[in-house]
């Protein structure tokens, strides 16, 4: 009985978090966009425009749901649900703190890769179901992009898994801090089990993981369909891409999925490369900073801080770099990221044999 209640409460908590995060992130995004362009961003709704996104969501909730008369009604209706659920389910296997994880499975990473691929299906359903040329073009681009970029993402995940030897995200995170049972070596030679802190993070355990993380970051940016890889939406050429025909709560769900995806990939990157819920502060002699800043509340705090920082970087990049052309997008994926990821994977294999084992 208690289990059943917990199984209901956890998704509700995660959904609440995603909704709150989206409201905050949209506001932050608009403010960052404003500041980068020497503007002020929203200023009129509430103090410094702080109620802007609440006003936006209230507007969206009140709107009528319009289905185009020639749309494929079933696909059109269920597409936003599939898009959102695919991303939402991904949160099930990501740890927030030590053993504080909705579902502690041994195939967590594989599960995430599998479930996020369904997002592409939802986008194709939305584009096809809308029966609109812009939507269809947008979703075709989205599919081409998401399927291509899944390869560098997958390869960079394998690069990490080769070193950690586990697909369980909870164990991957444990292996990057003072709570581990195995041995952690900073850059492969300096034992840092006692020191912990950022020295123990995966990207510093093996230096090629820095390159891998950059590949992972760029590729997941494309997976989220965010600028500079936002050609599926491309407001200036495709109206709104695959969500052109959506309005009201359906549009809100597509939007929610986009921001949830941003947070999900940031959190995944944090868990795999940046120490997960482990503290960045090392133990220095008698000053046990790492010991003091480890625990359930601290774990959640560090996960949130790191993930929000990465989300901030995503927004910063969005308002800096111009959108890539479709052919540039493909050549970046196939000619640069994929070969680099393969090289990193090879280095990982050699690292595993020569340095760790």
């Amino acid at each position, binding site marked *: 009985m208690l289990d059943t209640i917990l199984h209901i409460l956890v998704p509700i908590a995660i959904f609440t978090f995603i909704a709150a995060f989206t409201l905050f992130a949209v506001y932050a995004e608009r403010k*960052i966009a*404003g*500041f*980068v*362009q*020497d*503007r*002020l961003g929203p*200023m009129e709704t509430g103090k410094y425009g702080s109620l802007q996104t609440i006003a936006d969501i209230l507007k969206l909730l009140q709107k009528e749901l319009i289905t185009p008369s020639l749309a494929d009604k079933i696909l059109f209706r269920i597409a936003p649900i599939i898009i959102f659920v695919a991303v939402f389910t991904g949160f099930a296997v990501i740890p927030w703190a030590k053993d504080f994880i909705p579902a502690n499975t041994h195939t967590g990473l594989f599960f995430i890769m599998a479930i996020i691929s369904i997002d592409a299906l939802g986008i194709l359903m939305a584009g096809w179901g809308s029966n609109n040329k812009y939507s269809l073009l947008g979703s075709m681009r989205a599919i081409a992009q998401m399927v291509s970029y899944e390869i560098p993402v997958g390869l960079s995940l394998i690069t990490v898994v080769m070193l950690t030897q586990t697909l369980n995200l909870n164990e991957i995170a444990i292996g990057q801090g003072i709570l581990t049972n195995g041995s952690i070596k900073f850059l492969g030679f300096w034992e840092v089990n006692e020191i912990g802190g950022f020295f123990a993070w995966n990207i510093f355990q093996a230096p090629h993981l820095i390159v891998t993380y950059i590949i992972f970051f760029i590729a997941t940016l494309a997976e989220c369909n965010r600028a500079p890889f936002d050609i599926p939406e491309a407001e200036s050429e495709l109206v709104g891409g695959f969500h052109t025909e959506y309005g009201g709560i359906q549009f809100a769900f597509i939007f929610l999925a986009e921001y949830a995806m941003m947070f999900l990939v940031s959190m995944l990157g944090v868990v795999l490369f940046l120490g997960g819920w482990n503290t960045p502060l090392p133990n220095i002699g008698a000053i046990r900073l790492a010991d003091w800043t480890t625990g359930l509340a601290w774990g959640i705090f560090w996960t949130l801080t790191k993930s929000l920082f990465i989300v901030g970087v995503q927004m*910063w*990049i969005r*308002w*800096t*770099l111009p959108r890539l052309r479709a052919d540039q997008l493909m050549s*970046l994926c196939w*000619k*640069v990221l994929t*070969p*680099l990821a393969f090289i990193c994977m090879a280095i990982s294999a050699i690292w595993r044999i020569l340095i760790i084992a």
Partner: protein
Amino acid sequence: MIFKTASHAFRTAIKGLSLTVKHLFGARRSRQELNIKNDNYFDRQEGIVTVQYPAEKMPIPEVARYQLQVDIDDCIVCDLCAKACPVDCIEIEAIKSPEAIGKTSDGSVKRLYPAKFNIDMAKCMYCGLCTVVCPTECIVMTNEYDRSSQKLTDLIYGFSDMTDEQVAQRKAEWTQFQAEKEAAKQK
């Protein structure tokens, strides 16, 4: 080849990102210099440029051409402004007076009553020609520019200060004067 491309892309991306982050942190301040006439106007390149309009305003040039204003006491109802107007937005109706009504502030003698002096600001193209031709300089352009309204007819500004009774009375006076003159001629 791939490393060269990748590192070049990386370097250029860093360049752009450092530029935007500079502006992001520069946004803590607002640009103070709003007056373009100041010498250092173009030196201030950092900070927010937004002018939050109703709360703060930019200084406007002295010779700026905005809303028209007529000082009806100085008007001699010569109709020159209406004739000069390229878009015919000024509508004047005059009533003749039997004797001089008075003098304007620059000494011109007024002989006509302005029964109607309407300017349709919705039609006005802000060329300022009417202010140039005015002999008594009673029609001027002010620095007032925010006069938007919900109704188009609100943009027709009436400057005549005569009531309907006064108009009727002046008309009657003139008709009577004409009649008297006619009668004097008959004798």
